Structure formats: structure tokens, C-alpha cells
């Protein structure tokens, strides 16, 4: 039996199959379909300091092999999260990674301070990459801000930190390096790719939020490219996210340099997938005669020139 556990600096996971924020609700929604204790970890929907009603509907539109969303971080805020969801999420027999978003560094720090005493939390994932939130500074596209926010959270709590980054920047490796400098234990790549859908006959955008984030199989090549670039440029562990819907997709991400992956949109159309992938990973590694997941991470053999944009 191959060993499935992985280490991302201070974060230790029993296997590299996680589920992505915003695509798994608060886990309760998935109880009928998932054996939570089999998963490497769960990332519930992003929590913000105060409740947010979210964006007006329509909030999602299906596109070719993808999904555009502008949910707008609809959530009940940190108080309700702690009161209503935390105990449940901590009792599922898997690592709980709490994903937080805030408008500025002070708000991030305050959230981290409030979560600091909760030793059952395995890690914090910082959503500095959501294209749906207006009003705040877009921290994830500025290296200085990225470094500062990671540093502030690191100082405010003992939890391992994952910086979840946006692909909607010129150079993700630059931002990833900044997150590493700020003290992140890992980076999660990628959040959704900004996009749009219109109904030209009605001369209207199809999303209530006008712009949205693209996810699903359509973005997998983009995500894979970014994981590859970051893996070559920065030594920080990577969690690969984007369009994963099969064990081959998982292996692709591991081979280009991800130490773990998150399943996102696929949870919506294949709610039993995440648990199933844990079994398939085990079989796949066995067939590959790998003793450990580590044996495949970053094993891509790519000869040829280093891509120009890869700093």
C-alpha cells in the first residue's frame, strides 16, 4: 500500500485530495455523498468578518466545459461560522482548512486572532484572490500587499498558512514568491479565471455580478501551466486547483509540482468524486510502483528552454 500522506511545511495531510472552498458548502451539504474521513482535508466556503448577502442572481452560468460564477462570497460572517459550523467541521475526521477573506490587512489580522485559539483548525487559507468582491483592495495582485497580509496572519495565529492566489495577474510566480517571503506554508493555485458571458440579443450580461470567475475543465490547462511555472520559480509547496475531474488530472498536477490538489467545480456535477479519487490515487500509485506520493511530485521531465516569463 503506497503512503498517501503529504507534508506542506507545517501542514500535514493524510492524503493530497482536498476539496476547494466554495464548492463544498460547509460540508453538511455533502454528507450524503462523501466519506469525509477519507479526504485529505476540507476547505469550507470563504468566511468574511461580517455577513455578506452575496451578489444578485443569476450567480452562475455554464460555459463550454466550464462554469462562470459571481456568488460574491455570500456567507454569514465569522461569528455565525464559529457558532454554527466550526464544531461540525472539526468532527469530520479530516483536516479543516478555514478559508478567510477580508478587505484589508487589519481585518485579516483580526480574523486570524479570533481563529488563533481554535487548535482543531489544521490551517488557514487566505483568499486574496476572489474576483467577486468589490470594495476591497485586490491584495492578490500586488506582491507587497501579499507579503504583508501573509506576514500579519502568520504573526497573529499559530496555524499553518496557505495563500490562495489568483491567475488574473501577469506573473503568478512573483506573487507566490511574495507569499513565501511573508511566511506562507503553501500556495494554492488557482482561484477562478476572470470571465464574462453575455446575452447579446437582450444586450445584457448573463451574470448578476456582470463579471465572474471561470472554473471547471476549461481552466485546467491554465492552472497546470501556473503550477508548473511556480514550481520552477519558488520552493514553496503548491496545492493545485483547476478543472480536476479524474485521477489523471490529479496525477498531472502532482507531476508538474503540486504536493496536493483541491477538487472544485467537479463536486457540483460528480458529488461522490472526491472520495473516489482517494481510492483511485492509491491504485494509481500502486500501479506506478510508487511507495509514496512524494515519488511523483514534480517528476515532470521537460527539456528545452525555460519559458521566458518564468522568473
Amino acid at each position, binding site marked *: 500500500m503506497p503512503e498517501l500522506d503529504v507534508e506542506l511545511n507545517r501542514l500535514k495531510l493524510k492524503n493530497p485530495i482536498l476539496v476547494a472552498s*466554495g464548492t463544498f458548502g460547509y460540508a453538511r*451539504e455533502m454528507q450524503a*455523498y462523501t466519506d469525509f474521513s477519507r479526504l485529505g482535508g476540507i476547505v469550507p466556503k470563504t468566511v468574511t468578518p461580517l455577513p455578506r448577502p*452575496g451578489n444578485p442572481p443569476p*450567480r452562475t452560468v*455554464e460555459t463550454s466545459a*466550464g462554469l462562470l460564477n459571481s456568488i460574491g462570497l455570500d456567507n454569514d460572517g465569522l461569528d455565525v461560522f464559529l457558532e454554527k459550523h466550526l464544531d461540525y467541521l472539526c468532527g469530520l475526521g479530516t483536516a479543516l482548512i478555514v478559508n478567510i477573506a477580508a478587505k484589508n490587512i487589519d481585518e485579516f489580522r483580526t480574523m486570524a486572532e479570533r481563529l488563533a485559539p481554535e487548535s482543531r483548525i489544521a490551517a488557514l487559507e487566505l483568499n486574496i484572490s476572489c474576483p467577486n468582491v468589490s470594495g476591497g483592495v485586490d491584495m492578490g495582485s500586488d506582491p507587497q500587499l501579499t507579503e504583508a497580509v501573509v506576514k500579519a496572519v502568520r504573526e497573529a495565529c499559530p496555524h499553518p498558512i496557505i495563500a490562495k492566489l489568483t491567475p488574473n495577474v501577469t506573473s503568478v510566480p512573483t506573487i507566490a514568491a511574495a507569499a513565501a517571503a511573508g511566511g506562507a506554508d503553501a500556495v494554492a493555485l488557482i482561484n477562478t479565471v476572470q470571465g464574462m458571458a453575455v446575452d447579446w440579443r437582450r444586450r445584457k450580461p448573463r451574470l448578476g455580478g456582470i463579471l465572474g470567475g471561470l472554473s471547471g475543465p476549461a481552466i485546467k490547462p491554465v492552472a497546470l501551466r501556473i503550477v508548473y511555472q511556480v514550481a520552477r520559480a519558488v520552493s514553496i509547496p503548491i496545492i493545485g486547483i483547476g478543472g480536476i475531474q479524474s485521477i489523471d488530472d490529479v496525477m498531472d498536477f502532482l507531476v508538474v509540482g503540486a504536493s496536493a490538489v483541491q477538487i472544485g467545480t467537479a463536486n*457540483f*456535477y460528480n*458529488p461522490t468524486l472526491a472520495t473516489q479519487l482517494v481510492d483511485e490515487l492509491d491504485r494509481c500509485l500502486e500501479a506506478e510502483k510508487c511507495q509514496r506520493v512524494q515519488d511523483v511530485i514534480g517528476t515532470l521531465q521537460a527539456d528545452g528552454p525555460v519559458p521566458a516569463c518564468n522568473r
Partner: protein
Amino acid sequence: MSDPQSTTSYDQNPCGIHPYGGMNQRAVHKSAVVVSHEPMALNTFRLRMTCPELARQIVPGQFFMVRLPGLSDPLLGRPFALFNVFYDANGEPTDVDFGYVVIGKMTHLLSQCQPGDELEIWGPLGNGFPLPDGRPLVLVAGGIGQTPFLAVAREALRLQKYGDPVRNIEATPSSVTLCYGVRSSGYLAGLDDFTLSGLDMQIATDDGSRGHKGFVTQLLAKILDEQSDKPVVYCCGPEPMMQAVAELTASRETPCWLSLETPMACGFGACFSCVIRVKMNDRDWDYRRVCVEGPVFPAERLAW
């Protein structure tokens, strides 16, 4: 049955506003074989598939998601209401069917599928309609919005039982009426199925090709004005029609439940895409998920 009006707190139920709402912890995700697939009306088909786990549990007004396996476009499942449940020779529930109109990407492809093909399905989902009680029951359907009402009517008339454990209605409604409106008679679907002893079916067509010429809401208004016992109204159809029914029943202080057809990406509460505005105790409204807190809502709770 609890009347919409009689519930004082909107937040009583941990999962939402509806006493029957919530996430179904016994929902299944399965591959289901198509047993039969036939036209029902213009551009309308009926598809039956085998899934005992679903057939056993599902109750009238609940729905399931259907996905074409192996395809990335369309990527997501689509929600469809239960039309009816079928049994094997031993009386065990085995199959479910649904009626659908060909509208877009998924339903176009679906209309080509053949018996023997497999579909991916998950459910049962949503809350379903409340159990009927002794009061007269008026079902108001617009277009394909009729699909939930066959099972509702069969249960109300004690012709069939649903659910696991099998649920029993306390009292048969003193009358069951279906007001069914479509554009034109060619769109009337499943009339044979709705020919049930005890069911009063009233039809309205926009063009007058069958039944009352005009809107189904006119049929409802007449019933509300003429019936001495105050009925309970269940309604499903296009949004403008449901709004009209909500206004009509509100003005006559008649309890009314609406089944919404909001677009859905997952069907089980994970994506927060299917939201509608619901009136709240502590604020004007909040966005609530139709898939887990609905699709059936008390009309007066909706902040349109």
C-alpha cells in the same frame, strides 16, 4: 399540515425556513438506466429510468439532478421534478420518470437518448410539497410546471403512497382540482395520467384551442370566489404566473405554496447559485438557496 401563515419564526429550522426543508442525508448519486423515453406533447418528452434507491425515498414536489455522463459540455446536471414512481411485480419501488420540455443544450441532447442508455442522477433533493390535509386542494400548473402535480394528486387522492418510511396522509382533501394552463392544446402533456377518479381537471389555453381561453389564473380566481371552504393552493409554472397566483391567493387570504424553477448548478446546497430573496424576521430579506430550502416556498415569504 402547517400553514405558511402559522409559522412565526423564519429561522426555526436549522436548514432554512421550511418545516420540510433541509439537506437529504440519504440522497444517492447513481448511474440510472433509461427504461423508456417517449413524446408527451409538442417538444415535450417523458423519460423513465431505473433507480430503486431514489424511487423508494422521493416524495411529491422533490426533484433530482440528471447529467449526461462523460460530457464536458453540458458540464452540469439539470434539475427535474419527479413525475411518478413505478413498482416491480413485488410492489417494490424501482423506477422514476420525469417529463421535460426541450429548451437548451442539455435537453436537446437528452431528447436523443435511447432505452438502455445510462444517465447520472442524484437525489432526492429539496423539500417537496407539504402533505395535504382535509381542505380542498387546488393545483395550479403553467406549462411544464405541471410535472410535480401528478404525484401530488395521486398521493392526495390516496392512489399511491410515497417516501421511506412510506408516508400517510391524515385526511383526504375534500376536493382536488388541477388548473392546467398552456399556450395551445398541443402542449398539453400527460392528460391520460391526470385522468384520475376524484381529480377535477380544468384546462386553459392562451389561444382557446382547448378549455378556457385565457390564463389559468382566471380559473383559479373563479374557484377561490366560488368555493365555500377555503382551499390550499400549490402552484408551479413560469415566474409571472406564480407571481399572479401569489397575489390572487394573498388577496383572498388563501394559503399558497409555490415551487420555484431557479437555475441550479449542484442541486444540493454547495454552490449558493440558486438563491432567491426570502423575507426574514430580522431584516427585509436574505438570499436563500432554492435547492435545499425549497423548491417549495410559502408564497408570502418570497420577496420577489
